[in-house]
């Protein structure tokens, strides 16, 4: 494992910056200066926006949304400048730490709040600020008529700030702050239209499921503190590599995974994501597709040193990823709600990333790469879905869509590029990232490559089917519109971001993947891909197999949802379809396993509390009260009795002591 290097260097600003080497690579001391020292602005700018909009109240109604958008773009500019500065340095000097202030100083336990600007966090910074800013622009159009748009933009800015803090934090504790911040923003935005009780319930559901995961993360942090006495990345990850206790590493790894599962909607904590679509569509695009839900992947990749020291935990990561990618894909086949189908797809795609992240150094870079391309094409498709809803009176039932390609040409084209990208059709983005994950899943010995590789391969086929189904049902086939809709293309504020994202969906993979740019870039953080790791099947065969399965998926979807008529009312369907429509009964399982026993437990506790604890407390209170009333009579107002009390007291106490001695 790598030597950890930390050199404090003075810089002109009040912040001290230093170069850090993390976990798996050698780092040379390096003093950062210039724009990198201002990386804190990344978090501060959107946070300022949220503060101004929330505290300013109605006064900011007019300019608030635009201000929020401008601040988000400013954060992107800062991110881009920091990125350029980073490009100007050698690969080993790119990771820079920035100390902000001493945050916790409790005896020997010290945590300084600081940022870690390295290749991994920069990828996220650019994705979050760029896609986030595009979605801000899109929202200017999408939320134009909402009376509460100021609050909406405030929450969006809050989210961007929290998400940037999450990926820039230099310690698990600060990461946790961002982690909770994005959870809060997500909760507030899912329930943005909380006058609808179903939406409020969806927000609560997301909150509770996330809470379970957050407990995992907080327990992991406590374990780190217990074991290492520190919670910053440098110490923890450095120590994790140096033969740390494997039991502890496994426990920490599993708890981190639990946190990741909650945030990234991975099995078994995935049930909230579908309902989270209750939020406005830009939110679904930004938070529940492109950025927040990928935080779990970030956590796992960032903690790679821990997982490499705990093979069991690593295996569980892969298993969770494999289960979720199939789970999401199957659910996606049955959903008629366009947003829920996309949500299922998100779940499945993050399953791919999680699987890759669990594979170790062969997979890290591709997990992040897929995260990046997915961020573009899935956000683009969500915005497309929003555009469709915009034109269709906010309907979401795909069975009432069809034939929209004529009415909404730009939406159709941009969505189509996203569709090609997620399918993994060369040369679009998804091909470069997803096929690499499938290839990596086939690397290994024994049963694992076969199980995980086949899961990823079959997943690709199902993905092709359900995404084609979604695309064909929405844009092709016969028009099944209800009478009152008049589909129309959305305004430029909405379509331009879609176009930009579509360009990304089309070419990002080509630019970063074909050249190997992303793997080289991330290598200092994720470690080099091991030499001589070959899949159990030849790579060309895997590509061919994948493409055949994808083609089969498209063909099947074409037969059923383009050529044949789609009934406006869903047919009964097979048992599997029925199960998939109900998210494979996840809610029912949760209810039977957790909710009912939980309710029972709280009821019995309430009973015990009111009878036992309250009874005892009430009795004590009565005792105190009674004693008080009796003692009070001694306070009769006569100076002579007071004097007698004093005398008696002196005599009694002296007498008692005399007897004792």
């Amino acid at each position: 494992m790598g030597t950890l290097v930390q050199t404090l260097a003075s810089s002109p600003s009040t912040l001290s910056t230093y170069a850090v080497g993390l976990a798996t690579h050698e780092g040379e001391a390096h003093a950062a200066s210039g724009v990198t020292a201002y990386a804190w602005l990344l978090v501060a700018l959107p946070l300022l926006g949220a503060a101004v909009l929330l505290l300013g109240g109605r006064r900011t109604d007019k300019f608030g949304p635009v201000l929020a958008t401008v601040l988000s773009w400013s954060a992107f500019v800062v991110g881009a400048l920091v990125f350029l500065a980073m490009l100007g340095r050698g690969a080993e000097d790119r990771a820079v730490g920035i100390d902000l202030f001493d945050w916790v100083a409790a005896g020997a336990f010290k945590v300084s709040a600081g940022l870690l600007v390295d290749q991994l966090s920069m990828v996220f910074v650019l994705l979050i600020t760029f896609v986030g800013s595009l979605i801000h622009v899109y929202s200017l159009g999408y939320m134009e008529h909402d009376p509460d748009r100021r609050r909406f933009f405030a929450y969006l800015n809050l989210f961007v700030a929290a998400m940037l803090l999450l990926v820039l934090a230099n310690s698990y504790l600060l990461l946790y702050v961002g982690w909770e911040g994005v959870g809060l923003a997500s909760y507030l935005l899912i329930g943005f239209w909380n006058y609808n009780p179903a939406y409020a319930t969806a927000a609560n559901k997301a909150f509770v499921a996330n809470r379970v995961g957050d407990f995992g993360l907080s327990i992991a942090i406590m374990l780190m503190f217990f074991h290492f006495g520190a919670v910053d990345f440098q110490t923890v990850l450095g120590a994790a590599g140096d033969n740390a206790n494997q039991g502890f590493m496994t426990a920490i790894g599993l708890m981190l995974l639990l946190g990741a599962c909650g945030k990234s909607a991975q099995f078994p904590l995935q049930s909230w994501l579908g309902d989270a679509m209750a939020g406005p569509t830009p939110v679904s695009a930004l938070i529940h597709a492109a950025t927040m839900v990928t935080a779990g992947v970030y956590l796992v990749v960032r903690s790679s040193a821990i997982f490499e020291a705990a093979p069991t935990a690593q295996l569980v990561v892969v298993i969770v990823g494999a289960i979720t990618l199939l789970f999401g894909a199957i659910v996606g086949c049955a959903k008629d709600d366009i947003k829920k189908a996309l949500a299922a797809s998100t779940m499945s795609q993050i399953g791919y990333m999680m699987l890759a992240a669990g594979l170790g150094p062969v997979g890290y870079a591709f997990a992040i790469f897929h995260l990046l391309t997915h961020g573009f094409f899935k956000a683009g498709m969500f915005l497309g879905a929003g555009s469709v809803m915009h034109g269709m009176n906010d309907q979401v039932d795909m069975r009432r869509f069809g034939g929209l390609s004529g009415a909404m040409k730009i939406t159709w084209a941009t969505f189509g590029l996203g569709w090609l990208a997620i399918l993994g059709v060369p040369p679009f983005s998804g091909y470069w990232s997803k096929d690499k994950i499938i290839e990596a899943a086939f690397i290994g010995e024994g049963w694992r490559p076969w199980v995980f590789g086949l899961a990823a391969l079959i997943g690709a086929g199902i993905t092709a089917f359900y995404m084609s189904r979604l695309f064909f049902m929405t844009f092709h086939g016969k028009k099944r519109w209800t009478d009152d809709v008049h589909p129309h293309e959305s305004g430029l504020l909405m379509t331009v971001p879609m176009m930009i994202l579509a360009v990304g969906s089309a070419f990002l993979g080509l630019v970063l993947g074909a050249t190997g740019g992303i793997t080289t870039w991330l290598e200092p953080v994720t470690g080099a891909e091991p030499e001589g790791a070959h899949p159990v099947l030849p790579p060309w065969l895997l590509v061919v197999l994948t493409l055949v399965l994808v083609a089969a998926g498209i063909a099947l979807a074409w037969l059923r949802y383009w050529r044949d008529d789609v009934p406006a009312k869903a047919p009964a369907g097979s048992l599997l379809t029925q199960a998939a429509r109900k998210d494979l009964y996840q809610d029912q399982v949760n209810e039977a396993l957790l909710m009912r026993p939980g309710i029972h437990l709280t009821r019995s506790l309430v009973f015990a509390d009111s009878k036992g604890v309250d009874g005892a407390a009430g009795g004590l209170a009565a005792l105190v009260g009674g004693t008080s009333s009796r003692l009070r009579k001694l306070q009769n107002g006569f100076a002579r009795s007071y004097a007698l009390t004093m005398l008696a007291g002196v005599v009694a106490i002296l007498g008692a002591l005399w007897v004792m001695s």
Partner: protein
Amino acid sequence: MTAVAPLALPTLPAAFQQSNVDYLAILPLLIVFGTALIGVLVEAFASRERRHAIQVTLSVVGLLAAAASIIVAAKHQGLTMGLTDGSTNRQLFALAIDGPALFMQGTILLMGVLGVLTMAERFGGVGPDAFTPSGASTPGSAVETAAARAGALTSEVFPLTMFAIFGMMLFPTTNDLIGMFVALEVLSLPLYILSGLARRRRLLSQEASLKYFLLGAFSSAFFLFGTALLYGYAGSVYFGDLSKAIAAGPLAMNGLLLPGAFLVFVGLLFKVGAVPFHAWTPDVYQGAPTPVTGFMAACTKAAAFGAILRLAYVGLDTGRWEWTNALVLVALLTMVVGAVLSVTQTDMKRLLAYSSIAHAGFILVGVLAFDRKAVGAVLFYLVAYGFSTIAAFAIVSLVRQNGAEATHLSQWAGLGKRYPVVAAAFAFLMLAFAGIPLTSGFVSKFGVFSAAVGTGGATGTVLAVVGVLCSAITVFVYARVIVLMFFSDAPDDGVEVVTPSVSTTFSIAIGTLITLALGVLPSALLDLADRASQFVR
């Protein structure tokens, strides 16, 4: 320092000779005493209209000057006011200018400023102040009516307060039993008078004053008797001698030591309102003019605990195995009785009186930890409690019905709905008394209890546990007040919060802010108290 004297027989000194006085070391005392004397002259010569303003200004300036001069005195720490015993040539020292003494002096001076400002309240000259126009008249008599009609003001309260403050500053500074007794009387006599000067319910006020005086005299007798026994034991009243004499241990006379020590403590415990010497507290707190009550509760307690600390840690430290158990008993009784009795109180001033008794118990727990850290904790507690108390009583003096103070709890119902700011400040002070985190009350309780557990041994642990339980009981009391103010409906009886002048507002604001500041950022004062916790011997 004193030389070891032959302890065979108490020899009467032939003649005392003054050996040295470090005037800079006692500068704060001199300034306050001088201000008090000037105050008397002002009473005699200034015109009636201008007296009040002059007295208030004089007192505040004097107190602030004295507080500033503590910085000078801090550079002259040591024993002073030495006397030479003519026959044996021993050096005897009457005053100890050291960390605890100066810390207490500063605390008393600053709390005294707030106390004086509250007493100066005249509601812009339109409303009556807290004091009777004619203290010497019979309540309800024609003399009183005439004085009221003439607009007479009892501006004598200010010099009286200054004399009391002088006594209070002297109390923790004296290094011998006789000096301590003198200080005790100097601080008590003005307070007896001040207690009897309430403008309204004068009979109650005079009754309180008389009770305070009678019981105070009674307790002084205990103190003197204890002093006599200790002199009989050690042949000296000076703390240095006392400590050495006990260490040398003439076992034959142990029968004198325990009663002597305890009786001296009784005199001091009376002043802090410790059980079973507390009976005067609720009656006097209720009867005295409210600004006087606040001043008394904060400053007398601080001064008396300063004296208790010195007696326990310097004078009688070597014999503490003899008397500790007596004080432990008192501390336990004080906490339990104070907490339990506060539960059934229906009058705000009596409630605060029992609260102050319970707090005296908590502070005693800190005293009984016998550690330098504990001294720091006790000093911190006195500051925190004092400022909160002054602010609380100042608020009580503002809540009125038909011009008279509305002290019955039922009159406070729904106050939070009509006067949210004042009620919120009072609620915050209640939380501080309860010891809720982010208030000074939490930090101070944590300080004394952790000191007790840390160095007080098994006894300390028991005391701390009882202390925490009693705190829990008192939380109920304070929470009830808050609930009453914010969640009950106001009776339609015209209870109002009168608008105070700048001076009272200032007292309330400063008291509340200090309560908050010491709760959020206590480290500066904790450091100061810790550095000031070393006694000179």
